[in-house]
């Protein structure tokens, strides 16, 4: 197994193209090194992307945040203006692991590990984040919800990787939130996760919304039917009940030791309601 830590995107793409698939991108390593240790992965090349400047910074361009795919959770949490505009995205990332894990874990790794329970992904999907993906054919845009396709599997080509996440411009009165349910308070995998992002008009009526659920299907779900219950309405009990029902209808979870199908389905609706209340509150304050 070789190790390479290129300084330019072109070098990284060339190394990926040359390696004929026998390669793993290394970001924070908090998933990959555990899998390596367990003998689940044995690539010929470890391609460390943490020295690529495009993947390592958080910038604002034309009023939109660009988050490098290999920025750490701790760095996102320390970025005050990102946190101010996208508290749900930042909180979701900060839920990952412990202080030690936060120093390493990245949003690119969380997405490309393709776990349906990855915490930052529903928040990014709700936010409407778009990834810049590069490969030998050049670069392309890919919506976050189109990256993970099944557990451990992404839609990226063999020679492709994620450079950054671009969040849309933030109009006044917008807010997002992410909540997950775990049986303890720290260090566990989501049984269900729910992300809600809304934009309100001056009158408090919702003009735009996105709702996303994690850990209730083989991939993170964007749930347009749930968002449609919010759009055109103010938040009240009846709207929350419809949001809850739309989320439950979208679930296709598994039964396992951490939650049954019925339990996960019910919790998805409860979490979506609570996340919606927080997102509306945040939107109302701005």
């Amino acid at each position: 197994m070789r190790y390479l830590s290129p300084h330019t995107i072109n070098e990284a793409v060339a190394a990926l193209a040359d390696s004929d698939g026998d390669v793993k991108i290394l970001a924070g390593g908090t998933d990959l090194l555990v899998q390596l240790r367990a003998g689940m992965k044995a690539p010929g090349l470890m391609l460390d992307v943490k020295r690529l400047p495009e993947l390592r910074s958080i910038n604002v361009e034309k009023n939109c945040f660009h988050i490098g795919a290999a920025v750490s959770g701790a760095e996102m949490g320390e970025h005050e203006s990102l946190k101010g505009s996208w508290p749900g995205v930042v909180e979701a990332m900060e839920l990952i692991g412990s202080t030690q894990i936060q120093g390493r874990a990245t949003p690119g790794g969380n997405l490309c590990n393709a776990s349906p329970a990855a915490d930052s992904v529903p928040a990014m999907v709700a936010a409407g984040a778009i990834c810049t993906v590069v490969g030998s054919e050049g670069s392309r845009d890919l919506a976050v919800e189109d990256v993970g396709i099944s557990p451990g599997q992404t839609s990226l080509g063999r020679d492709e990787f994620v450079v950054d996440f671009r969040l849309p411009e933030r109009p006044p009165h917008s807010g997002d939130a992410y909540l997950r349910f775990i049986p303890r308070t720290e260090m566990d995998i989501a049984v269900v996760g729910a992300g809600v992002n809304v934009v309100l008009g001056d009158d408090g009526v919702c003009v735009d919304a996105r709702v996303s659920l994690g850990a209730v299907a083989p991939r993170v779900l964007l749930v347009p039917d749930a968002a449609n219950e919010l759009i055109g309405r103010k938040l009240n009990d009846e709207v929350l009940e419809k949001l809850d029902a739309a989320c439950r209808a979208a679930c296709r979870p598994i039964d396992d030791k951490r939650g049954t199908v019925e339990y996960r389905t019910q919790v998805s609706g409860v979490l979506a309601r609570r996340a919606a209340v927080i997102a509306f509150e945040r939107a109302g304050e701005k």
Partner: protein
Amino acid sequence: MVKTHVNMTVNGEAVEFLCETKATLLDVLRDELDLTGSKEGCSSGDCGACSVILDDRLVCACLVLGAEADGGNVETIEGMADADQLHPLQQKFLEEAALQCGICTPGFLVAAKALLERNSNPTETEVRYWLAGNLCRCTGYDKIVRAVMDTAEEMKGVSK
């Protein structure tokens, strides 16, 4: 076997070694540099016994490759005391019996030091969340948390 040539600073001293790709920073510290204070509990990021500070970030040395630390600045438990003078956290852990078997102690000390450098006046909740990635099978955590809080209190007194 392809090895990577690595230069890094450990506790203020420049070190240089050849490293197999699969060797973690923890393997390098313990087996190559003979710094066995950092412990191996789980090797999967769950227990925090291998906690070190890499470029001002608290990390699990078991989840960093030695090769990744090239050019890096590493602080381990061995660098915590100033010659014979224990760090106030080490002193407080002893005084308040915040350890029993001791296997988790280096990790807790390094993690607590990283906390106090960032936040000299943490609440109990902040201490507990910050240390949630460090596991202890013996103490039940209370004495550890109290020792960290008492050290913070004492260090405030000194710096006033």
